[in-house]
């Protein structure tokens, strides 16, 4: 993509400054400022309705931010379609409800975007798809349709589909919330393994175990504000804000 202005943001791959977003009269994001470093695993937690999903959806323009500034990998997120396209092809996203394409086989789900957006050959895209299915542990399901897979398998396919575009950043929007308890672990294992590869990950989740194990930093959202951010040790053992303490005491009551 020629002619896209690149801004030097140093070691930070995502830079958000005072990001604001309204749904009608309701302000969902009340000025979020946050920098994500290259290769970092950032976990976002918070009560429902706190704006965490909205926030990561603004990073790849599934929601438009109405104030502030977002720069992803040196590209400013503006109304320019080319900027949006460039940013989206750098970011992979995994959704709560998997959102696989039901009319395509698993293999076709994985090769669709590389062939049409990256302009890879069919052979190259299929080789990459099989490699990724191997990595998430379900190569034998390549020619099934998403509807024939279990929830955990579908979510692993969804992760592989996002990775097929070779993104630099992966966004996870509550990837285990729609899964049966029996299947959460297989998805978390894949994410855990991914975290070690050095890809930048932003994960919205309620899985505190995953946050403790894999996160470099954890941030806590409440009422559209970024309340607190810090490394897991500090976050879980000596939270600074009363609101964070209350939230942690409620979810870690056992």
């Amino acid at each position, binding site marked *: 993509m*020629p*002619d896209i202005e690149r801004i030097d943001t140093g070691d930070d791959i995502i830079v958000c400054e005072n990001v604001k977003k309204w749904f009608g009269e309701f302000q969902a994001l009340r000025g979020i400022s946050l920098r994500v470093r290259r290769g970092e695993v950032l976990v976002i937690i918070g009560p429902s309705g706190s704006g965490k999903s909205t926030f990561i959806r603004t990073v*790849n*323009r*599934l929601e438009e931010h109405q104030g502030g500034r977002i720069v992803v990998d040196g590209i400013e997120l503006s109304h320019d*379609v080319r900027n949006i*396209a460039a940013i*989206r*092809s750098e*970011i*992979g*996203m995994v*959704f709560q*409800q998997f*959102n*696989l*394409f*039901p*009319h395509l086989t698993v293999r076709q789900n994985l090769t*669709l*975007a590389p062939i*049409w*957006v990256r302009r890879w050959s069919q052979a190259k895209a299929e080789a990459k798809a099989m490699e990724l299915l191997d990595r998430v542990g379900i190569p034998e399901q390549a020619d099934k*349709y*998403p*509807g*024939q897979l279990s929830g955990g398998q579908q979510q692993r396919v969804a992760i592989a*589909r*996002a990775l097929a*575009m070779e993104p630099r950043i992966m966004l996870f929007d509550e990837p285990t919330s729609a899964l049966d308890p029996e299947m959460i672990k297989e998805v978390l294992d894949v994410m855990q393994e991914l975290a070690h590869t050095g890809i930048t990950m932003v994960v919205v989740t309620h899985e505190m175990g995953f946050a403790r194990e894999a996160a470099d930093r954890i941030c806590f959202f409440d009422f559209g504000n970024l309340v607190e951010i810090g490394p897991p040790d500090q976050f879980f053992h000596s939270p600074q804000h009363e609101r964070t303490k209350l939230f942690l005491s409620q979810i870690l009551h056992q």
Partner: protein
Amino acid sequence: MNAARSSRPPEASDGAPRPGLPPAAAALPMERPPRTEVGPLGWLRHNLFSSTFNAGLTLMLAGLLGWLGWLAVRWTVTDANWGVVLKNWRVILFGVYPRAEIWRPAAGLILVFVLGWLTWWVWRRTEMWRMRRPILAAWVISPLVFGLLLGGFELPTLRSIGNGLGYFLFRPDLLSALNAGWRGPVALGLVAAVAAITLDLDRRPLARALSAAALVATALFNLPSALLFSAQVPTALIVLAAGGAGWIVGRWCTRLLSWTEQGRRLVPWLWLAVLVACLFVLTDFKVGRPEFDPVEVLTSVQPSLWSGVLLTLVLATVTAVLSFPFGVLLALGRTSRLPVVRACCVGLIEVVRGVPLITILFMAQVMLPMFLPMNLSIDRVLRAIAGMTIFTAAYLAEVIRGGLQAVPREQVEAARALGLSELLVTALVVLPQALRLVIPAIMGQFVSMFKDTTLVAIIGLLELLGILSSITKQREFLGTVREVYLLAAAFYFVICYAMSVASRRVETRLGVGTR
């Protein structure tokens, strides 16, 4: 998907353990249901003979139906005069199509059936998916092929193709125009300017080579006159000056206006403009026509002579093939975010849906010629096809819009998140799912369109119904109305029923309703 395919009652699968889980501990063995509860015997007992009153009713109705059936069969076999069909089968099938050329519609009909059967055969097997695109392409070009086959066409001979090529490439007067005075240098200047722009902006080797070749060729055309020294001002100077000026103007355009991306997209259009301008400069647009001696490959048969079953099938096939893409476009336009596009589509759809088909057909026959130039007359059959296409497309658009709205928003988001452009999101993710959802409704539209082809009889076209009613008016076949219309009813029923069976099978195959 499995539940939809298997004919077993749903309770049967309840006892089966879920895959991957251990079976329920100490389950009792399954028993067979009592003989009187299942199978044909059970069905009869439940539905026809569940009480004395119902049993009596069943027997009475069976008697009545049997009697009516016997009357119908007796009339069909003994009383009916099927001679009217046997003697007229050729007319019924092909109407007034010239006798000697009847092999053409016959071949066309066979082609349609072969294509339909092939489509069916390929779509049933997933391993044949590579053949789907060629078959779709065959359907798309089928109206053209059948049009040529039925209507006849001419081809230029090889000699006249060569003649024409030579005429345009090596036209003697064009060459002299190039040499004449100001014309050659002006053309050179224009070409030089666009070549300069192309070389500056386009990095593709082919584009660069082509523009360089165009520049060199125009320069060479100017060579003979440039070498003439008899003129007062040396022509070579003029040629050089023109070429140089063009080149500098081109450079100036790219540098001063700092054209980048937009400029590169303009390049092909600039070449087109320069081509037209050069033609104008060189010839004042007084290009003569070369000799053209076409050979008639298939003799011309006016569409107004297409009739009978042939016309019915032509109307239905061509309308279906043409109205489908129009319907998709109208539906997409109606759901578009652009207000003007949306308003136009809504307007067209609502107007067409608010008018009876017969009115549209009359308008196509009577009013359309008023808007066309005097010397341009469109055949009546083609006008009927146009009317039916617009009508069907409007209804299809509404059906397809329903499908578009039923595709969940999350699908669009997932596709966008992968970096697909809006066009690709629609073409690869939304439309395939939307169309699958509305296959039954689309087939329903096609079935009703097929039956609506009978309306063209009212505007005087001789499709199946028109031909049949004209047969019954002949003295020889008076009083055969019943036979003839029974035949028509059977024909329409068989085809419509086949269509709905096919649609039901396609639906199961694509797993509608499974996610």
